[in-house]
């Protein structure tokens, strides 16, 4: 978008209103693709009219009215064209919906529509990549270009992903609704997974030059906060938000002056973002109060909280962290969790105990190409004074690592082990 003050203001209004607009329209037309087109049409109208007429007092209502009016006009034209071919049933139905006064919007909280839209864009019928792209586009208000830049793919790839995702949702007749009690747990997990994927891509970029991409973390945090506002009784929603806030509190401390990664042990804890720490700890408390048994995100948040509360690595409650990892490992059976548990065991009970655990993981096929396995093993061997072996592990880790900055850190650690 051009950078005139009005255009920047329209941009801001769009960011605030687009999710609600698309969600409200999806409820009316039962088709997310049609709804997004209508919303885009309204945006085009705003870009034409607002620079001359000024921004209306209630821009959200203006966009909704305009989207519906333009949608009705477009449908009428199509119905008129297609009448000869008798293909009008579906269009007529949508037209009927649009021409009715929208009673539901008054009775129903519009926010419920946003929640329904989240469950739609994170529906398991879609691939992970498609869920991420569609959620960022429809709920985060990001442009295709912004999504492409964030995930280091081309704009046309993202466009295709989104088009295909919308088609899949239509073909699978995915309903616009909050899932019922019986499947709610699984579906909430699917939503949380999408949000955490976005966060992680920002927190520890898997590829590219930069070690972190804070803007992507901000987008994930915003989605997490929206979800926590919409589902205040779901413990894992608060658990994930708490986890992200606690991790994000360390963002600026985990990048050095030249963009290089700084490990937790070496971070200047005064540079942590204490507003986020406080929010994260409060959110964790809320998640724990709502939980029966703690879920995986709440457990991870509890681990992050142990770090957030500690004044230094030495003063960290590593024994408690090991216990929390025990719970997480039992819940997930994930070898990556086992790997992190080995780090905690090393800190709590010494490197010998940690090495024993690591070596029991060495044959796991899921970790075969995972750079953190040799990286952790290198760290433990270094603590044991077995520097030649540590050096080789760090080199191996660097070879497996796709992120340029992180690879640099691993190579410098290898170098430091050279006798």
């Amino acid at each position, binding site marked *: 978008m051009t950078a005139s003050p009005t255009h920047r203001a329209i941009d801001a209004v769009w960011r605030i209103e687009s999710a609600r607009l698309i969600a409200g329209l999806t409820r009316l037309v039962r088709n997310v693709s049609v709804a997004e087109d209508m919303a885009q049409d309204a945006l085009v109208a705003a870009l034409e009219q607002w620079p001359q007429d000024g921004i209306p007092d209630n821009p959200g209502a203006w966009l909704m009215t305009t989207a519906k009016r333009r949608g009705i006009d477009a449908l009428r034209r199509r119905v008129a064209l297609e009448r000869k071919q008798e293909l009008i049933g579906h269009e007529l139905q949508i037209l009927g919906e649009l021409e009715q006064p929208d009673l539901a919007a008054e009775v129903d909280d519009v926010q419920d529509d946003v929640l329904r839209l989240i469950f739609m864009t994170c529906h398991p019928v879609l691939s992970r990549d498609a869920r991420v792209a569609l959620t960022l586009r429809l709920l985060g208000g990001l442009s295709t270009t912004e999504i492409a830049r964030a995930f280091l793919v081309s704009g046309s790839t993202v466009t295709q992903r989104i088009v295909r995702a919308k088609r899949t949702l239509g073909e699978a007749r995915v309903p616009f609704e909050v899932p019922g009690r019986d499947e709610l747990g699984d579906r909430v997990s699917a939503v949380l997974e999408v949000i955490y994927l976005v966060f992680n891509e920002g927190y520890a970029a898997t590829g590219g030059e930069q070690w972190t991409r804070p803007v992507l973390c901000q987008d994930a945090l915003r989605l997490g906060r929206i979800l926590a*506002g919409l589902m205040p009784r779901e413990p894992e929603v608060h658990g994930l938000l708490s986890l992200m806030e606690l991790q994000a509190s360390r963002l600026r401390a985990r990048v050095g002056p030249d963009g290089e990664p700084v490990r937790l042990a070496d971070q200047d804890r005064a540079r942590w973002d204490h507003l986020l720490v406080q929010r994260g700890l409060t959110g964790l408390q809320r998640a724990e109060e709502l939980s029966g048994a703690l879920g995986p995100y709440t457990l991870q948040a509890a681990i992050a909280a142990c770090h957030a509360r500690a004044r230094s690595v030495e003063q960290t409650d590593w024994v408690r962290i090991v216990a929390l990892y025990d719970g997480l490992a039992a819940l997930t059976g994930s070898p990556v969790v086992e790997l992190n548990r080995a780090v905690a065991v090393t800190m709590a009970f010494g490197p010998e105990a940690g090495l024993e655990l690591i070596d029991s993981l060495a044959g796991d096929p899921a970790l075969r190409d995972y750079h953190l396995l040799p990286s952790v093993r290198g760290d433990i061997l270094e603590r044991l004074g077995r520097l030649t072996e540590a050096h080789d592990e760090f080199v191996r880790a660097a070879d497996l690592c796709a992120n340029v900055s992180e690879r640099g850190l691993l190579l410098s650690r290898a170098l430091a082990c050279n006798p």
Partner: protein
Amino acid sequence: MRFMVLVPGSPEFESGELPSKGDLEAMGKFNEELVKAGVMLAADGLHPSSKAARVRFDGRERTVIDGPFTEAKELVAGYWIWECASQEEAIEWLKRAPLFDGGMEIELRQIMDPEELEGQLK
């Protein structure tokens, strides 16, 4: 980007008068909207300046001045901290706030990122 919105006091606020139920409900609704939009990070109301103190610095001398202070309009009565994508977004939100009227001016300030200061330390 993080923003702080500074809400000024008024003679009624300074006299210790609590907001009406209707006002509280209107502000509560706006705050809820901010939370559900993922914008709100923190919000607090302050006590009137009758409970405030100032410390005056003069060379090595420190003088404590107890409230209340005059110029009610220049005193802060509360604040919001918001996370927004741009200053324009924060302005859009602020324009939607209820209760402010009669020429009241509400100030919006971008919170400085510590990184902006770090260059000075090198």
